[in-house]
């Protein structure tokens, strides 16, 4: 009895002595690695003219710079198109795959992980060699490659949420009540996998809007490539953009993460 009691005490002691050193060490490390550079850049971006004082001058410079709005608009446009093309291509594919196309699953799985394997630089060179001229002359060619680059992430987001719903039951119920395939997908499946769809949408959008490699190698101007050019004239302005985009992205994703999640379960009950 005595030994087990002291064992319990010892175990408790171990828990308590281990927890705080770990938490404190990791917080300190995180502070040094992540917060210090971000904070340093933020302070720097508020420097006034000639490095004196604090002001919004770098942010104002940014907005009034030639190409700010056009490049931002181009990026937004391409990112929105890529996000919706991803859905149009991947939602039917993934639904069919989970419903009837099991034997193709490993092939699709492999194709979707390929963009992680093939370096984007190599894909860009390949695109220059392989794409027909008519496509290479239009900035919209980027949309297709943004979809490809986002594929590993969209695949996983959609697959995970499809696994959580009783897909077959839903489809059979909907079909036997006389719904067509289109309305089954749009009115039954899409609402049921809403979380996966929003995930895929945001991931594709975020990746597209920040994409630099393939855009610059194919010589198009979007917001990220414009930033690099602008930085050569005004590094303070470029730092301001960077801080702005980081803080904006963190705020946006944190809000999404904190939103109450309506899960697929509820949809099933409602049916």
């Amino acid at each position: 009895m005595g030994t087990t009691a002291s064992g319990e005490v010892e175990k408790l002691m171990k828990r308590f002595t281990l927890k705080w050193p770990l938490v404190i060490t990791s917080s300190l490390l995180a502070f040094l690695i992540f917060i210090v550079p971000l904070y340093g850049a933020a302070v720097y971006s508020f420097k006034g003219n000639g490095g004196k004082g604090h002001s919004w001058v770098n942010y104002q410079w940014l907005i009034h710079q030639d190409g700010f709005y056009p490049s931002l608009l181009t990026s937004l446009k391409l990112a929105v198109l890529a996000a919706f093309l991803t859905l149009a291509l991947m939602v039917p594919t993934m639904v069919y795959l989970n419903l009837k196309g099991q034997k193709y699953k490993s092939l699709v799985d492999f194709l979707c992980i390929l963009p992680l394997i093939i370096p984007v630089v190599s894909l860009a060179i390949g695109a220059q060699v392989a794409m027909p001229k008519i496509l290479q002359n239009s900035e919209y060619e980027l949309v297709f490659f943004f979809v490809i680059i986002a594929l590993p992430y969209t695949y996983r987001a959609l697959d995970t949420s499809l696994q959580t719903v009783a897909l077959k039951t839903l489809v059979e119920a909907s079909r036997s009540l006389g719904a067509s395939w289109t309305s089954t997908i749009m009115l039954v499946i899409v609402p049921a996998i809403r979380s996966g769809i929003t995930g895929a949408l945001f991931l594709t959008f975020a990746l597209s809007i920040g994409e630099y490699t393939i855009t610059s190698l194919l010589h198009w101007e979007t917001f990220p490539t414009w930033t690099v050019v602008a930085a050569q004239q005004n590094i303070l302005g470029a730092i301001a953009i960077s801080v702005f985009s980081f803080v904006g992205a963190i705020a946006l994703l944190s809000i999404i993460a904190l939103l109450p999640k309506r899960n697929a379960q509820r949809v099933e009950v409602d049916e």
Partner: protein
Amino acid sequence: MGVVRARSRIRSSGRGSGVLPLLPFFLFTGFFLIWPVVAVTLRSFKGNKNEWTLANYRPILHSGPYFHAFIVSLKLSLITALIGSLLGAFFAYVIVKYARGKFGAVVDSISAVFANSGGVPLAFMFVAAFGTEGIVTKVLKSLGWDIYAGHFTIFSFTGVVMVYSFFQVPLMILVFKPAIAGLRREWEEASTNLGASAFTYWRRVGIPILTPSFVGAFFLLFAGGFSAYATARALTVGTVPLVPIIIGTLVDGNVISDQTNLGDSLAVGMIVVATIVMAGYIWAQRQAAKWRS
């Protein structure tokens, strides 16, 4: 295990159906993913006069600037993947153990931002913090440590290592967290009940189970660091000779080579390295999956 396998066999058999609904997907990936890779591979074996040759591969395989670039790239990926995987695993453990609920969700999204939207902004942030006029540089200087006293600059190899670690660590957190969360409480309880100390539990149960996931994540980080382009491009403008950067300068025509298709063979070389690394990743993932389900 047996039940799971049997069930998946039932699912996969008999339910055979047409390939037609998958045609858009296969056409899309075929044209925009497979065809570019095939095309660049074919052209990398073509000489200046469109004849078949191995000449484009000679500069990569023999010592010289292009061979050297592969060495530098591999060294960079190795170092940053090591830093990223070790620190990231530590963070992932602390987060899984002590940060749950809403705080955990916020940490997740912050990691996602740091890991993915790095690229160009990241480079400028580090210039602001650690450049010659950077805030951190000045603070450290006022504390008596001049980081620019030696050979260090943020535009050097060491600088790139620092910046890459900034996205490798959060990437590791994202990738490795599920593995740590998958360690079942029952395993720890069982081993404690059998009289094992915490140390024995980690040595005999925890670490062996996590090793495949860790190795897999390491390979993923390695491949990511090897392929990364934007950050190094924006930061160094070519002062550190990395393979992707050299391909970029060849494509932009900033460097003229007497071999027109040299960029192609460099691109294929990168695909080969990345394929080997990712084969390791897929293998390790399979090993790790044995413990799940």
